[in-house]
């Protein structure tokens, strides 16, 4: 793939800070297919929305491998079966329902809301911990440790183990990046699979302990689930736990960081948030549209020929759904490149849609609402020290690696 191809430009790190002009270019070709055997890339809002609900589109890892994906995604290669994000119904539905029965309605309608107080306490501690510093890195000192702490408590993973599991999470997350140059590298792939297995083994120890002595956390619930859908096998518990642990923080860190970055670029909105913490609800929705932490979904394939805007996407093709592009589609949103929390209608694709729509959405929303409202209230005259900031490598889970800020101090 040449760097001049649009798909290459999307994955090119040089464009990480501002991929939106490339997405605008992408939308000029409703179904972009640049090379034989390559992915079909979709960037328009309505097309993405339709395909997210289309039962001819599969998320199954096995179909993806058959479609010529370079990743070694089969269950044999890692020892862990795919998690529900990489499965189709009925397996997907069963696993997701069981996971949900300890997370959200109808079985657990209050789980997230009941964490509100705890989330505020964690935020307060982290901001207090900034001390007298006049220069901070929002990512390392706040946006990363906050969701990590939250997902650890929710799952029942000891917070102090974070340095251990981080060494396994990092290569796993890197493997989600569709950088074709690196993912062709078998060493790189093997490292990711080793990491997934190691993380699974680490979690296995915790799950074993929870099976004997269940506690009030999701690992215990997953290990002991016994609803209408039956029980999870140990391997299913582990692949679900790996998914929740990673998805539970690797996305929210970007949402919070993108949020602060966007607010500092729009100081009048930051000021309004300072005066009215309730505005955080609309700000987070608009952020999910404007700077979504998951930029694209590169892991779908079609299991039948699909006719889209006069183009036939042949059965077996890989499909990329560029959510962040759909979110800036002028056919759907007026003045899409403006950050405007007052929009009357922000039906964004930030959490996807259809059966794979973000499982953790209610938690991510609440975390980011509390985080941004408190940062706005307590950070005294925050200022960007670097704009654009340095970004993480990843084109899918896109966000700043660091966000250096100057602050006048921390308000009580």
């Amino acid at each position, binding site marked *: 793939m040449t760097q001049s191809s649009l798909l290459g430009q999307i994955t090119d790190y040089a464009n990480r800070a501002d991929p939106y002009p490339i997405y605008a270019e992408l939308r000029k070709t409703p179904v972009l297919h640049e090379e034989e055997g390559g992915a079909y890339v979709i960037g328009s809002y309505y097309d993405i929305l339709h395909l997210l*609900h289309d*039962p001819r589109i599969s998320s199954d890892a096995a179909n993806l491998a058959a479609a010529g994906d370079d990743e070694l995604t089969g269950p044999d290669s890692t020892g862990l079966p795919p998690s529900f994000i990489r499965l189709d119904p009925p397996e997907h539905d069963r696993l997701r329902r069981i996971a949900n029965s300890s997370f959200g309605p109808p079985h657990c309608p209050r789980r997230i809301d009941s964490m509100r107080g705890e989330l505020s306490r964690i935020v307060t501690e982290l901001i207090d911990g900034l001390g007298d510093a006049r220069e901070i890195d929002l990512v390392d000192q706040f946006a990363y440790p906050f969701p990590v702490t939250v997902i650890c408590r929710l799952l029942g993973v000891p917070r102090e183990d974070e340095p251990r599991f981080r060494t396994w999470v990092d290569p796993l997350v890197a493997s989600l990046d569709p950088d074709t140059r690196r993912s062709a590298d078998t060493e790189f792939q093997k490292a990711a699979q080793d990491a997934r297995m190691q993380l699974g083994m680490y979690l296995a120890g915790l799950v074993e302990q929870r099976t004997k002595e269940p506690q009030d956390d999701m690992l215990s619930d997953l290990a002991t689930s016994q609803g209408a859908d039956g029980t999870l096998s140990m391997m299913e518990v582990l692949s679900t736990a790996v998914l929740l642990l990673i998805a539970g923080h690797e996305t929210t860190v970007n949402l919070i960081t993108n949020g602060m970055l966007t607010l500092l670029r729009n100081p009048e909105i930051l000021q309004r948030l300072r005066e009215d913490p309730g505005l955080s609800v609309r700000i987070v929705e608009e952020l999910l549209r404007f700077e979504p932490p998951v930029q694209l979904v590169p892991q779908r394939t079609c299991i039948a020929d699909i006719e889209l805007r006069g183009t036939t996407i042949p059965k077996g093709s890989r499909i990329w759904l560029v959510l962040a592009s759909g979110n800036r589609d002028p056919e759907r949103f007026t003045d899409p490149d403006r950050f405007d929390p007052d929009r009357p209608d922000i039906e964004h694709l930030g959490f996807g849609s259809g059966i794979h729509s973000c499982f953790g959405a209610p938690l991510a929303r609440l975390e980011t609402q509390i985080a941004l409202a408190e940062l706005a209230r307590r950070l005294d005259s925050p200022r960007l020290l670097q704009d654009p900031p340095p970004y993480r490598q990843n084109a899918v889970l896109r966000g700043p690696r660091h966000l250096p800020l100057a602050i006048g101090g921390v308000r009580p």
Partner: protein
Amino acid sequence: MPGEDSLERLRREGRIVIVGASLAGLRAAETLRAEGFGGSLTLIGDEPYEPYDRPPLSKAVLLGKASADHTELPRLRAVDATWRLGVAASGLDMAGRRVRLADGGEVPYDRLLIATGVRARPWPKEAEAQLDGVFVLRTRDDAVKLERRMKIGPRRVFVIGAGFTGSEIASACRDQGIEVTVAERADAPLVGALGGVVGAVAADMQRENGVDLRTGVMVTGLEGDSTGRVRAAHLSDGSVVETDVVVVSLGATRNTEWLAGSGLGAGPRGIACDAGCRAFDFRGIVTDDVYAAGDVARSPNPLFGYQFLSLEHWGNAVAQAEVAAHNMISAGADRRPHMWVPAFWSSQFGVNIKSVGVPSMGDEIMITQGSLAERRFTGVYGYQGRVIAAVSFDNTRWLEFYQRLIETGAPFPPEFETVDRRPEGRQPVPADFPDPSLPTHGPTVTLSGYSPGDRQLVFTPAHP
């Protein structure tokens, strides 16, 4: 142009009257104000309450999880209206542009919107219907009375009719451990709306949840004791079921009696109107100052052969009210057609049921995803070689796709591969709808034929 002057005057200082103060009436009022209507607005409702939401009445309210007096509809904006609540409209003088009220009053209008909806069809034998313990469920008052009676622990609830409301009531009973018998004239629950294939699944669901479901039977009579309380129901198969609560769930009757003699094209099947929500008079000539929306309206839908559809659906009430309100204060070229694809949902026995399109038009059904046996599936209905409807049990998130198939007239049966396609879904089977002439609770979508004036219908899309 003089027409534009008068439209401007209407928008500025006209009098708009809305008869029916429920979902459609409220949303129409809000739309009128949102679109800049500055004149006087009067809402007339026969119930004494501000607009409230009905779907929870047969679900959360019966379960005691929500209170019937806390189901007010959220207000999207201030409507600055005169509310005439607790007074029914009793007549319409089209020539004099007045609505007569049951209390003798009259309200003049420049534009009228009729959104009087439907009411529960009562038990036909009046003396039996009067027995203590015999209920219907449509209004907030109905729900309060029924919930109160269910709370004191009846030995058995007897539900007549296994349509959506009847089935939801049975579900609420079982949820609370109350014994319940359901009597249905057809061979299974929900057959009027979804056909026999899906009805069989609904029947299994009921029985597995401990409902004493009697199908293929009619209720021949309700028996009271010496104090006037209901004590038993008699069935056409000769059996007698002892019960202390009877819920009559035989579908709905359209509230059009008050329009008798008015000259409007209104009758038991509703008020005929064009796609722009303008009501027809009885000659089939469209009026320009009387509009209809919600359950009471029947209008032609281009997706279904321009047949007139009556839709007892929440979403339809909202969408049609918005179109009606917009058209009431817009010039001809700016008017919009109401082209809603029917959609409704129900939740019962822990399963979410949702449908799009008009299943009752379908002659075949094909299970394209999931499995009937697992009660998690999507079924597609076909009519004359095209996709006409779809239904899902716990499979809601795929329905948007099937809605597009309906809208684009996609061929039936759908041959393409889908995720979760099972062997049972390779062949279409007869959808098995009962003979429509057989009275039952009926579907929630009714095809009510063709307009007498259908040749005069010209649609004006907003953006040609």
